[in-house]
């Protein structure tokens, strides 16, 4: 492999990661987490009018390919007169995706908090909302870090699908250079290495967060 090609293409690819892949993943994950908590709570609600839409949403998100969801939003919605730019389309698709998968993770984490914690919160007089925010969710957060890290790492790699709707990001930069130089193997391996590097950093961050949250647990 030609080292100078590798080095010359590293700039654009890294730029694609910094301006495309990373912010796309971060923004979608942040929105997606909020959505996931809302959907998880709706899914656990005593009211079926909340439970059913939540179940349906989770089922659709998990049961259809992310690429198809992305195409429906970017290429499909214009038929209804709703034309979105590539970036917002990608953010919406990835947010919905994290929301669907994350909801089940968060639901499981909430269910893992012992019943006695709910009872103690009731005993001291906390309402449902305070019980969730002050007692249950902080404990559920600890349990959900490993599976949510998985979701985030998957999301980072899935953002490569945004290249299919012409979002400028890591993989799209690699594709452009590969098409121009015909060095497909070199460029795609290089792209893979950069994804891998990002995920290594994320794994390290995950370990640190886990250690922090495990501090006070016997």
């Amino acid at each position, binding site marked *: 492999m030609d080292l100078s090609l590798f080095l010359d293409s590293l700039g654009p690819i890294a730029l694609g990661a910094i301006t495309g892949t990373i912010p796309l993943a971060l923004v979608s994950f942040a929105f997606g987490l909020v959505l996931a908590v809302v959907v998880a709570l709706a899914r656990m609600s005593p009211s079926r009018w909340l439970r059913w839409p939540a179940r349906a949403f989770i089922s659709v998100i998990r049961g259809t390919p992310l690429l198809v969801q992305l195409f429906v939003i970017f290429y499909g919605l214009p038929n209804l007169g709703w034309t979105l730019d590539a970036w917002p389309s990608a953010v919406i698709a990835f947010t919905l995706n994290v929301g669907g998968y994350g909801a089940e993770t968060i639901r499981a984490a909430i269910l893992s908090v012992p019943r*006695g914690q709910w*009872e103690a919160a009731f005993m*001291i*007089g*906390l309402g449902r909302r305070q019980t969730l925010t*002050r*007692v249950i969710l902080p*404990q559920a957060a600890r349990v959900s870090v490993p599976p949510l890290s998985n979701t985030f790492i998957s999301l980072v790699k899935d953002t490569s699908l945004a290249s299919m709707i012409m979002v400028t990001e890591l993989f799209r930069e690699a594709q452009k250079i590969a098409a121009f130089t015909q060095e497909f193997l070199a460029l795609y391996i290089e792209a893979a290495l950069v994804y891998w590097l990002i995920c290594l950093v994320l794994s390290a961050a995950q370990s640190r967060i886990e250690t922090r949250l495990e501090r*006070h647990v*016997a």
Partner: protein
Amino acid sequence: MSLKTTPAVRLEGVRLSFGPTPVLDGVSLTVAEGEVLVLLGASGSGKTTLLRVLAGLEWPSAGRIRIEDVEVDAATTPPRRGRDALRSRTAMVFQQHNLFPHRTVLGNVIEGPVSVQRRSRADAEQEARRLLDRVGLGERADAYPAELSGGQQQRVGIVRALALHPRVLLFDEPTSSLDPELVGEVLTVMSELAAEGWTMIVVTHELGFARAVADSIAFLDGGTIVEHAPSADFFAAPRTDRARRFLARLDGGFHP
């Protein structure tokens, strides 16, 4: 002994079923202000459920309950409001302490006073430290529950209940998940509270504590109170066979 006559708690015909089996089958009972009542009975007799009804954790299917100035009726009070009303007059010490693991000892104690009762943090902390001092845990205010022994955790559980300023203290087998050598420190704190005049309802298998500290005993079997007597009378001469057999089993220990 002072004359204890003002009723703090009154139950009339309290019933509760889980599925087809009645767990409480018409319980009527009064507890005077400052009285220490110990609930005895085999497992499944309904004593813990009775305590949980008083704490507002379970809602009965029938019956009336009055705790000081609060009165609820299973037939007419909306369950949510009723449970909240009972909860506001009682505080529970749980078998498994149920402390919040992500909060310090101090954080556990002030959570109710600050987040619910809207007292100032400084005020709540001052009282919490004073109460922790009293149970010998003044030095551990900044520790996390996992760093404490079982007996210390349970004493924090008691302080958390006291900080709520309840009218009635409820204890659900507070020593049964403790190692034997840690039971004493918890029972000592409970005896001190009894001597201070707290109204207490205690589910326990510690007969020594019941004999020494309780004013009266209610013996439950099959969801009803089969015997309710002053503690001295109950232990000297239980009137029912079931109570006699229960005491013989508990007192006698292991008889192959």
